[in-house]
């Protein structure tokens, strides 16, 4: 059972990384326009790349 001693913290750490990246993506406005993101895949690449909000 001693495997739990590092497996559980490891699992939690991975979870925390997930949480952290979600918060990061939320704060950079990546959830502001989900439908638009789906449409933008279809667009040709532009030279002007001001996609960040």
């Amino acid at each position, binding site marked *: *059972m001693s495997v*739990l001693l590092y497996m*559980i913290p490891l*699992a*939690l750490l991975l*979870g*925390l990384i*997930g*949480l952290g990246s*979600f*918060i990061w993506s*939320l704060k950079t406005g990546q959830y*502001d*326009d*989900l*439908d*638009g993101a*789906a*449409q*933008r*895949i*279809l*667009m*040709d690449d*532009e030279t*002007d790349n*001001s*996609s960040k*909000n």
Partner: protein
Amino acid sequence: MAEQNISGEPVDHRPLTTTNTPSPVTPYVRKNENGENHLVLMVDGVNCAKCIQKIEGTLRKIPQVTHARLNFSTRRLNLNWTGPAEFAEFLCAKIGSLGYTCTPFSPETFESNENKETRFLLLSLAVAGFAAGNIMLLSFAVWFTGANEMGVGTRDFLHWISALIAIPSITYAGRPFFQSAYKVLRAGHTNMDVPISVGLILTTAMSLFELVTHGTHTYFDSAVMLMFFLLIGRYLDSRARANAGQAARDLMSLMGGTATIIENGVTRTVLVRDLQPGMTVIIAMGERIPADCIIITGQTEIDSSLITGETMPVTANVGDHIASGTLNIAAPITARILRSADESQLASIVTLLERAEQSQAKYVRLADKIARLYTPIVHLLALITFISWIMLGHMAWQPALMIAVTVLIITCPCALALAIPVVQVVAISHLMKRGILIRSGNALERLAKIDTVIFDKTGTLTLGKPTLCNKADIAANTLQIAASMACHSRHPLAQALASAYDGPLLEMTVTEHAGRGLSATHNGRDIKLGRRDWCGASNLPSQPDYLEIVMAQPDTTPVMFLFTDRLRPDAIATINTLKQRGLKIMLLSGDRHEITAKVARAACIDEFRAGLNPDQKFAELEGLHKTGHQVLMVGDGLNDTPILAGADVSMAPASGIDIARNTASVVFTGDKLVPVLQALDAARFAQTLVRQNIGMTIIYNLLAIPLAMAGYVTPLIAALAMSSSSIMVTLNAFRIRRLK
């Protein structure tokens, strides 16, 4: 705006643009922190990636534009640029030339609380989700290993980790509930957040106690999962909530400003609010009429689109009364003030509007109604459980409290908290994809209950802009010449004439004569296009039902172009379907009786009232309310705003004036009237789904409460019950997408 027409004369388009687009966009421009201009526009007609690319691509090519991003979900275009704020008009025209219509947004009224609160809820939701997932992982191990296989030490270890995750995350993510519960308790009331907070805190505390005493069951997982589901509901609810309208205040700003008066032959500038009856004012072309007055000298055209929604300018002569808030679009006039600004028509609309906005607050949301019943029942049941186990079951207080807490957990309005907001959010986003913007989940609830629809005439039933209706009678080359001239003017009729012709235009030098018309020379012939008396064609048969432009060429009979405002293309079909749905349809208009009757007949509306001023319109609404009717008002003009605000639900076309749009609970885009029907159908279906969902949660509670009170609910059962009921109501909500 240093635009020049071909003859080299500078043309001031500023005043006349207001007759085409309901309001100029410059007032909506804000400065952002980098000193750039910022503007949010709602763009109509965007439906694919190409549109995004076309709009953004075109705008980004303009060197001044520093940021152009179109949000496809909300149809909002965020624009930043450097230089003068007035550049906005050009940018809008640019978007218009691509074939999209755009209307400005005042960011303050629309999304002030959206950002802060919704974002905080989403963060809490993320934390709760993380905690719930991880604790569940550990709990599974406890639940599914027999007591013999797992030692007490291992179980305690897993429980301790759960506690370590649960307590900080409940402290962080439970704040929305704790804060709200604290607030109402301090005010001596109660709401849904009180049992939630009590449940969360008691569960955590009892679980901690169990942990210390090496108990078998801890309920950290239940508490965190409960919080997670509740936060989903809360988050969706906050997205569906409307912001309080501040239409009256927007309107007041129209009454500000100054006016030029003549006193003893000398002109002087005074504040509009200092105008007194009897004063003589000079009203320049493009100026708003400061107060109700009567024309002394000059002949002009008055655009009263802001007040009546009537987009066709009306000719005004000496002796005619003109109302405050209307716009002088053709020629300068002098006029005598009849009433001070405070007593003028505009002021009376403001008063009405304020009254209407105050009367709105009475509506109680279904969720709140349920909460009022729910809270005492749940607390009572938990208390009964606790006391009965001690008194009748002779149990120690700790296990009895534990059972009482499970009653609280299991009855916690998890599915109930989701039942309404999920349906509303799905319905709102479903409608948004069809160009219908619902300002609040509230509006959906009320929309489902209406039994009467009141339409305004101009701009609502009709398109609100003139269209050429005798095109078939006009020779092609005559139309070509006329359109080539008309495209140089911003007058609404001239624009209608220009847009009726789609062939190649002729190059010519055109001069605009304010208030009269346009003149040009083509192939050595002088051509006039404008008012009939100016074109020397007073003897043409008069056409009282139509608006007209006359074209005169030497040695030929003058040609008349007749214009009328058309019904929205699907108005008849929509109204008939609304009638089939059992709704009472009414038309209220400020326009003349004959015209209103004609439109009513054309649109198959049996009941109509004509010649109503805003007070009378509002009185009609109050009459309907007194007889117990639930009213949907569809209107677009300033004269409609009190009734828009006072009606149970209101809809405004995006082409309507800004104040009407801000007042209305639903805004729809496009030329069609069918959004009224779509919104109504979606609202009714949403209401059915809400009722089904509430029914489901009640059944669930009827099954779960006896179990919980009997003490049979383990953390596993609580988790299963909570998640299954939540998933059920969510899936049910998505059925709304089946609607067309």
